[in-house]
Each structure stands twice: as structure tokens, then as C-alpha cells.
């Protein structure tokens, strides 16, 4: 059977879709509504302590990297739907942006 890299693309895509569906809205609710309204406070000590913890790092990384990958893959497919070619440029732009975010998140979390 021919080898395919599709499962490698699809598993994080589906996982990212689920994480984006379950986690992303409440995160936006916190940073976009509750913190600006002063109902909730994201104190540096609390967030930094969470990001210091290895499990905290993993949770934060998953909450960022998986939806980012999901979005990149889906944007590439949508670009295809819009007739914007299945070419290298779209692929490089979508996955390149996702990899940039994922690497930046990883580096920042390791440094914290």
C-alpha cells in the first residue's frame, strides 16, 4: 500500500478542531470580556506559576498549537474551495504560519 502522510495531518486536525470547539471560546470569553470588564484578573504570578509547571506547559501548548494547526489545515482547504490553487504558496503560507506559532509557543513555554 502506498504510504500516505494524511493520518499525520488529520489526527492533529481533528484534535485541534475538538480543542478549538471545547477550549477556545472560554479563553476568548476570559481575555476578551471578563478581564477587560474587571470581573477576572490574570495575575502574572498565577499565570507564570501555571506555565512553570510541566503539566501547565503542556496544557497551554495544546490549547495553542492544536487549534493553530487545525486552522492552518482548514484555511488551506478553504483556499482550495475558493479556487486559490492547491499549489505550494498556499500550503507554505498556511502550514508555515502554523509552524511559526507552534515553535514560538514552544520556545516561550520552555523559556518561562
Amino acid at each position: 500500500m502506498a504510504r500516505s502522510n494524511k493520518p499525520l495531518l488529520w489526527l492533529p486536525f481533528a484534535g485541534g478542531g475538538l480543542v478549538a470547539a471545547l477550549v477556545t471560546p472560554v479563553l476568548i470569553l476570559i481575555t476578551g470580556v471578563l478581564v477587560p470588564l474587571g470581573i477576572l484578573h490574570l495575575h502574572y504570578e498565577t499565570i507564570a506559576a501555571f506555565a512553570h509547571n510541566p503539566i501547565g506547559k503542556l496544557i497551554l501548548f495544546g490549547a495553542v498549537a492544536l487549534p493553530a494547526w487545525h486552522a492552518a489545515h482548514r484555511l488551506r482547504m478553504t483556499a482550495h474551495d475558493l479556487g486559490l490553487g492547491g499549489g505550494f504558496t498556499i500550503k507554505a503560507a498556511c502550514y508555515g504560519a502554523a509552524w511559526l506559532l507552534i515553535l514560538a509557543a514552544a520556545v516561550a513555554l520552555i523559556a518561562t
Partner: protein
Amino acid sequence: MSRRPYMRKVERSWWLHQPRYVLYMIRELTSLFVGLYCALLVVGLVRLSQGQAAWEGFVAAFSSPLGIAFQLVCLAFAIYHSVTWFALTPKAMPLMVKGEPVPGIVIVGSHYVAWAVVSIIVLIAAGR
């Protein structure tokens, strides 16, 4: 490959011709806002790694009127993603229990329960 399969020309505006295609395109567009919000979160993680002053600057930036407006748009699209993603789950991963298919409403419903539970946990964790 040497064969050149026939490719039918598709109008770029095909999705404007039917309301259900427009809804499909809005659903797909949610990924743009999910991606942009992820970028905001990554900026946050970078600022967090740079210390307290950088973090507080980031909090002030996303709490600005522009930050709030951007995030409200993201929130609307993110919720639309959740709703459409949950609606798809019985089709994407039909479940069989003891040889019987699990009704779609149970699969969708359990996702909504999970959504509520995860949201409450995150709110409690962030509110400490």
C-alpha cells in the same frame, strides 16, 4: 504522472449562489479567527516569558477597545465553530455500543456537556 485530468472551471463565487453554501463558507471562515486568536495567545506566551512588565503590557493591549472588538468577532466565530463541530460529530464518528448505533443526539449532547464542563474548569482555574 503524465495524465492531465479534465478540470471543470469553477466560479470563485460559487458559494454565494445558495444560502447553505454561504453557511458552509462562514463555517470554514471560523478557522481564520481561531487561527488569529491563537496568534494572540502565542504573543501572550512570549510576553509571559519576558517577565511581569511585558505580561501586564499584553493584558492592557488585549483589554483595549481594539483588542476587545477583535476578540468579540473571534468569540462569535469560535462559538459558531463549536456549534457546527458538535453538530458534525455523529456523522464524523458514529458510535456503536453493543451492536446498536448511538443516537446522534446523544453524541452531540455529550459534546455540549463536555463544552460546559471544560468551560467551567477553565473559568475556575483562571479565576483563582
